[in-house]
């Protein structure tokens, strides 16, 4: 029985439970809803939720846990001598899974009987031929231990699946029956259902948090693997980024960090003044009609995919800068050799961040109470003096928070720098040179044919984790500042 059927049966049970619970409650009150503790539908929801929720929870946990148990048991029965030189248990296990899937497919398509598939002493050559004829994909020659392990894998998986279906259905029926029996006009169905909904909301919130924890942990484990293969001193304090897939790489984060921070700095130098001035205009000077048009227009910028900004940088901004600063350019200075440069990426990223800064700052400036403006105007200050001496200082902590949030976006930005910044890792203060960032190096280390056992690949996780910690720190700092500012007018 496929998973979708199981889910459909569960849903059907819930629907039946809803109507059964509802009518039982009504019957217990003699058909008069006023005698019920709760509205009739609450009794229905109670039965439906009791059937659905425990069953689904068990189903999800089972689906997550079963493969782990099967994997560890099966990998335990593979003898050490069955693992050839240059391979490892993980690779053999993937072969085992492939064979198991092949057997499953062959049985399903009728190329093989169930008994043949389970025959542990079957002739390997005939079996391989049968499987290949049945169109199953095999990459390696099947050996006896692999076959045995694959058969064990199949049998455990199918037993587990049947057991799961039985347990889940039994749980659904039990839950429904329990709730149905409890349904009576005195039963506080409304409170129970609301508790249940509360639990669901809590679950949704914790999934978001647990995912973050999961991301951090998975990065952390890979990073630890990396540091076993490569010295942490070189990673944090080295000065060269020179990955070499034949070994002997120098993998230092510092040149990449420098490129990241340099490009982000240029982006902020573009975005903060423009965004802030736009916000001041929109919140203080623009009439209602102008604001209604200009604000959404500005925010359209925020909706443009960053790859499009990358194209803009590559095709428009870069060549324009070269024609200005390059050899034989308008300024005749010859500083810029290629359109891939820190300046190109920084400018375009700055444009991308303008709506981010302006929208947040606009909200913050609007949150400054009108009484501040009245107070300043009432003392004979002009509008611009009021903005400069009262509103901006009052909004400053919030604006700083907005800038920090923009900075953490700039640091984590990938597509623009991939397309516009170049790929050379170096320490240089020249904005017309190509440089590279942490994010682009993660992309380049993980694209193409990769071997997840070499430090050249695993370094991507160490880079990602460092990046994550930097932006997380910035975000926490920004939120702290924004929150502190909110308390100020109380």
């Amino acid at each position, binding site marked *: 029985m496929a998973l979708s059927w199981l889910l459909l049966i569960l849903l059907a049970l819930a629907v039946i439970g809803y109507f059964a619970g509802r009518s039982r409650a009504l019957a217990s009150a003699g058909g008069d809803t006023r005698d019920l503790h709760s509205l009739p539908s609450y009794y229905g929801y109670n039965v439906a939720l009791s059937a659905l929720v425990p069953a689904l929870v068990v189903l999800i946990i089972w689906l997550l846990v079963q493969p782990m148990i099967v994997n560890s048991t099966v990998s335990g029965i593979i003898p050490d001598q069955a693992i050839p030189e240059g391979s490892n248990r993980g690779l053999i296990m993937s072969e085992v899974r492939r064979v198991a899937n092949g057997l499953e497919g062959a049985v399903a398509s009728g190329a093989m009987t169930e008994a043949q598939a389970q025959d542990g002493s079957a002739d390997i050559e005939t079996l391989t031929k049968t499987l290949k004829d049945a169109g199953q994909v095999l990459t390696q020659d099947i050996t006896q231990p692999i076959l045995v392990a694959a058969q064990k894998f199949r049998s455990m998986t199918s037993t587990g699946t049947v057991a799961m279906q039985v347990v889940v259905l039994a749980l659904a029926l039990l839950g429904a029956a329990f709730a149905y029996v409890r349904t009576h006009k005195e039963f506080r169905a409304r409170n129970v259902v609301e508790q249940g909904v509360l639990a669901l909301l809590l679950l949704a919130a914790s999934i978001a948090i647990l995912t973050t924890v999961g991301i951090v942990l998975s990065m952390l484990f890979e990073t630890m693997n990396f540091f076993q293969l490569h010295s942490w001193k070189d990673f944090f304090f080295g000065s060269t980024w020179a990955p070499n897939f034949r070994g002997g790489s120098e993998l230092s984060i510092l040149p990449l960090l420098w490129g990241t921070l340099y490009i982000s700095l240029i982006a902020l130098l573009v975005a903060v003044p423009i965004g802030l001035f736009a916000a001041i205009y929109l919140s203080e000077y623009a*009439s209602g009609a102008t604001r209604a048009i200009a604000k959404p227009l500005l925010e359209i910028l925020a909706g443009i995919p960053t790859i499009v900004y990358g194209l803009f940088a590559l095709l428009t901004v870069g060549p324009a800068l070269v024609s200005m600063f390059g050899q034989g350019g308008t300024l005749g200075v010859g500083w810029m050799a290629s359109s891939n440069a820190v300046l190109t990426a920084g400018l375009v990223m700055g444009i991308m961040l303008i709506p981010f800064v302006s929208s947040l700052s606009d909200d913050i400036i609007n949150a400054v109470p009108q009484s*501040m403006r009245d*107070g*300043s105007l*009432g003392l*004979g*200050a002009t509008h611009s003096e009021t903005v400069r001496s*009262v509103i901006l*200082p009052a909004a400053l902590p919030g604006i700083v928070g907005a800038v920090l949030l923009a900075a953490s976006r700039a640091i984590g930005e990938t597509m623009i720098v991939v397309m516009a910044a170049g790929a050379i890792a170096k320490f240089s203060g020249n904005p017309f040179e190509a440089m590279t960032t942490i994010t682009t190096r993660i992309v380049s280390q993980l694209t193409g044919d990769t071997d997840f056992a070499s430090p050249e690949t695993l370094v991507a996780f160490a880079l990602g984790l460092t990046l994550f910690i930097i932006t997380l720190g910035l975000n926490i700092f920004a939120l702290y500042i924004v929150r502190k500012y909110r308390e100020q*007018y109380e």
Partner: protein
Amino acid sequence: MNDMTRVERTVDSKAIKIAAKKVQVYYGETHAIKDVDVEIEDKTVTAFIGPSGCGKSTFLRCLNRMNDTIDICRVKGDILLDGEDIYDKRVDPVQLRAKVGMVFQKPNPFPKSIYDNVAYGPRIHGLAKNKAELDEIVEKSLRRGAIWDEVKDRLDAPGTGLSGGQQQRLCIARAIATAPEVLLMDEPCSALDPIATAQVEELIDELRSRYSVVIVTHSMQQAARVSQKTAFFHLGNLVEFGETGQIFTNPEDPRTESYITGRIG
């Protein structure tokens, strides 16, 4: 306490500070103030009383052109300050507001230090040549605002950290610091407790020796305690204007009497 006798009521023929003639105010289509004529004397506390929405605050905000900051608001008629029309094109509303200071309903100190709050006006108007002069203006204003003794040791502390009554007196000191000739107060005590209210009222009475004070209030007792002249507004009309003692004891208009005795409002 006998409210009627506390304030000395010898009203000499003082100079007219502000004269309003046939003032009309419109908010969009709404006719908020109709044909108001009033003469506000120098060195006198004038109270505007009336039920909510009667236009007393709107009229007050006409006197320093604060209504200019509201887009849909239009003012017609003449308002003369020392004989000059304040709505004349040559008058800069910014300069006017330095001469006609304003204190608002809710204390609104800037999120700056106490010193910087008071020094704000003198700084933007260039009233002090150097730091010493500025210090002097700040101290003098805080003294006149009757808050110097409470804050002299913590001038660098934020103004927002003071209590409500202290904040309001700080705002009054801030308004005084620009050396105004008229002080407008829009329900200055409505956000304060009785003790802070008493302190502010005492201060208003002292301010009378230097400034012309106009106060909008919901509290008739307050109007009776602090003012020499009272104007009663109702539905955008100035119903009655006269000496406070007379308005409260012997009003001419039946609407005034109804309001004072609590039948309308």
